[in-house]
């Protein structure tokens, strides 16, 4: 049993970096929406002292071009594929799931319920998951935002609505100002804050959700070493995803995979998977679902 390493959605394009994608156990696409999107105007990335901000705004070719053109090319990579989908209403999500259902190249659909850079669907996360559940028999992961008072409550609601797993966490809204002009460094103002600063927040979310629901969790947020990955696994994740670190180090997955095992062995466990949930005192934490 191993701890799979994925990329975080939106942090890798396998078509411009096939070799990088092939270092992963699963490739997750950037979020696809029903219609093509150009995204937000640039500048839409900026470094901060302890993380980065982005306001990409889900630039993507739309589901039609994705199914016709992108997906067949992704399938040739030989890496299991997860497709991240996003929309602006329950209908959008249901439609996307229906269209993806017939495509055997796709193993899992990740519902992006948490992009801080676009308008949100008016429905709750649970309503969207329920509609997606109706629309597809495929494995469904719900990707949640850390920007919520009680993420465990949302986790329970999406579990009840039929989610098969959780992806935790998306970015949280942040802002930086240029030191000389005092204008926001991103054209759009605020953006999604990712990277090292997010790590304790992500860890708290994984820890809380692992207690609340019995679903597999992909943990992410600031992971750049095996020790970070192991912490997420100990908090309850069964897989980890790499986001921002891939920009600085495209082949980081190879290093993190080795370091994760080394860290586990140094702590007296046979593998990283063996320490899953160990941050929890409760003994009821033995029966954990795998990815």
């Amino acid at each position, binding site marked *: 049993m191993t701890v799979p390493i994925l990329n975080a959605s939106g*942090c890798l*394009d396998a078509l*411009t970096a096939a070799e990088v994608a092939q270092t992963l156990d699963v490739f997750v696409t950037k979020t696809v929406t029903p219609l093509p999107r*150009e995204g937000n105007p640039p500048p*839409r990335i900026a470094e901060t002292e302890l993380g980065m901000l982005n306001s990409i705004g889900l*630039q993507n070719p739309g589901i039609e071009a994705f199914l016709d053109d992108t997906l067949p090319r992704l399938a040739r990579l030989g890496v299991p594929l997860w497709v991240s989908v996003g929309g602006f209403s329950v209908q959008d999500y249901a439609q996307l799931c229906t269209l993806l259902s017939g495509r055997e190249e796709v193993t899992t659909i990740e519902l992006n319920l948490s992009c801080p850079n676009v308008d949100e669907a008016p429905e709750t996360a649970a309503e969207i998951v329920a509609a997606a559940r109706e629309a597809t028999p495929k494995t469904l992961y719900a990707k949640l935002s850390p920007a919520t008072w009680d993420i465990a409550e949302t986790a329970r609601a999406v579990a009840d609505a039929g989610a098969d797993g959780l992806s935790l966490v998306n970015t949280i809204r942040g802002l930086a100002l240029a030191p000389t002009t005092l204008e926001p460094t991103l054209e759009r103002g605020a953006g999604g804050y990712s990277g090292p600063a997010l790590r304790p927040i992500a860890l708290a979310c994984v820890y809380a959700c692992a207690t609340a629901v019995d679903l597999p969790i992909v943990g992410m947020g600031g992971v750049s070493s095996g020790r970070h990955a192991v912490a997420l696994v100990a908090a309850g994740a069964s897989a980890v995803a790499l986001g921002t670190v891939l*920009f600085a180090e*495209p082949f980081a997955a190879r290093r993190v995979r080795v370091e994760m095992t080394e860290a586990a062995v140094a702590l007296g466990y046979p593998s990283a998977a063996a320490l899953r949930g160990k941050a929890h005192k409760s003994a009821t934490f033995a029966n954990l679902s795998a990815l």
Partner: protein
Amino acid sequence: MQANEAIGAYTLLRIERGGLEPGSPGQFFMLEAPGRLLPRPMSLCLAPAGELAFLVDPIGPGTRALCALRSGDAIRVFGPLGNGFDLDVERPLLVAGGIGVAPMPYLAETLGRGSALLGFRSPRHAEAAVLLPGAEVVVEPRLVTELLPDDPGDVLACGPEPMLEAVRARAPHAQLAWEAPMACGYGACYGCVVEHEGRLQRLCVAGPVLRGGL
């Protein structure tokens, strides 16, 4: 890191090549900037045997950290990336403004011919012209575009946006090397988009050298 050498206001960063290919002129590398989360894009300036050399303008925290590197320090380098200049040209004319001079030495060397026009904002910056012997050099308030002949031939240019716009006005078919903030340099982040041919495209994948421009 082999060595850091001041050239006027800029710094020439010489790095052991290791297993990296130099790529073609106008392509760039992502260089780890010590202490910063994200790497910084740098055009290859020179490719001496066993080395890659970059010319860096210290304008912010990342470039300052690069200029502060010392011999023996190790940094992560990734590349070559993007699309460089199309070298299949008849009458090449190299035009650069400021740190836009960076890709020109490697470009001139690879082409083996062609003349060059360089513009700088101060005499100290203009010292970088030593990297391109024989180039015609102007310093502000004179602008490099003033040197463009009426029939400029095949222009290959790099420099700040207003300069590139001015070059394009005079030479609509020029090959222009643009800049945009980049987090990854290899198409992963969708951060570096520019409007090109009517839509937002990733400069690191579609460029940085574009014909016709933004």
